[in-house]
């Protein structure tokens, strides 16, 4: 069904078109005014924590491989990469050298890596061998009960959450990251003020 609409005639008459345009835009501006945000921020704040871009990164405290503990919120003010991995996962193995390189390059500027081992689906011994083999120097929190994996809604390994200095997740990457991708994301966030 094709209708030659009455609307089309509006565009052939200057006066009608002008009035129509004015009314439509006035309605639009009125709606935009009525629905403007009352929150004084560049984005509508999302105080809840959720493993999604734009939300506060879920906090966790974990034991570190080799001793000690780490709490994510204690790293506020730094750009943090939370990377979930397992030693049996080939893509995890593939991206680790890139993470190590970025860690060594950007640590002095405030970059931190928490490479959380999904210990509930790995073995600590295999993970330790993996770390030594690749000569990784960043902290390795352990997740023996899968709590961090659950908090971060783990769907596949590796999964990376790049968090800004305010604790907001800015990028979620499922699958291996290239060196350039990681470097570009970290560089961008390090430039932002605290």
């Amino acid at each position, binding site marked *: *069904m*094709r*209708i030659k*609409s009455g*609307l*089309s005639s509006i*565009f*052939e008459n*200057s006066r009608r*078109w002008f009035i*129509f*345009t004015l009314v*439509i*835009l006035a309605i*639009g*501006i009125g*709606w*935009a*005014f*009525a*629905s*403007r*945000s*009352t*929150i*004084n*921020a*560049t*984005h*509508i704040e*999302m105080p*809840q*924590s*959720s493993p*999604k871009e*734009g*939300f506060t990164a879920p906090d966790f405290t974990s034991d570190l491989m080799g001793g000690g503990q780490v709490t994510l919120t204690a790293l506020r003010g730094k750009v943090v990469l939370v990377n979930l991995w397992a030693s049996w996962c080939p893509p995890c193995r593939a991206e680790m050298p890139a993470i190590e390189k970025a860690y060594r390059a950007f640590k002095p500027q405030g970059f931190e890596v928490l490479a959380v081992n999904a210990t509930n689906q790995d073995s600590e011994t295999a993970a330790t061998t993996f770390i030594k083999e690749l000569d990784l120097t960043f902290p390795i929190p352990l997740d023996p009960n899968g709590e961090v994996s659950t908090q971060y809604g783990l*769907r*596949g390994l590796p999964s990376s959450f790049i968090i800004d200095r305010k604790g907001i997740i800015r*990028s979620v*990457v*499922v*699958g291996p*990251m*290239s*060196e*350039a*991708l990681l*470097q*570009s*994301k970290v*560089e*961008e966030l390090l430039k932002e003020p605290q």
Partner: protein
Amino acid sequence: MLPYLSIGPLLLQTTGLALLLGVWFGSWFAEKEAARIKIKSDLVSNLIFIGLVSGLVGARLTYAATYINAYLANPLSLFEINTHSLSPIGGLIFGTLAAFIYGQRQGLKLRPALDALAPGLAVFMIFLGLAHLLNGDAYGATTRLPWAILLAGDYRHPTQVYEILLATGVMLIAVYYQLGQRGNGINFLWVVFLSAAARVFLEAFRGDSMILLGGFRAAQVIGLLVMAGSLILMRTWAQLPANAPESKI
């Protein structure tokens, strides 16, 4: 939300799948419309294909140019299969430019070509909403309305569902209530206008809006400008004959 589908060892990204389906169905609708406007349908499908491929290449190159040091040190990263290292603006510019050059070389006229693409664009917008729904993107503001959905730790407006419904409405209007004569470009502008109006309406319920001075939502301001531009261009094009020589791309 179902951002990934596990099929054995494979993890299928449903968002990408929804967008691919959108391109496929959109192209099919565009080809049908092209035949009605008396444009060879393979010209339109080539136009879409060239625009998409060039857009993807352009998006990656623009992103790489923005972080030139990272990519000079790792040039192979240019070929990475990842949507995180794409520049949407770069993709739009390169894609449009390549499609424009292709159209020019094939002697396609701008306004009939745009009209052929109009229903396809409207169909694609439905699948864009579906991609948002599957990935939980473009989420809504918190609400206690009975149809709220639990997303990211709170009950929210199902803005992705609103988006799909509005895009379906725009598509139905685009197909069954065409404003202009086929080939004069008005029908394309009609789809653009309606899509922009839908976004201005929808943005009020979003929870991830970028906020400008005075609390105005950026997407609404841009949407209003697009609406105004479409209305001005509709008036201009309505006064031109459908086969005006200056409309050749």
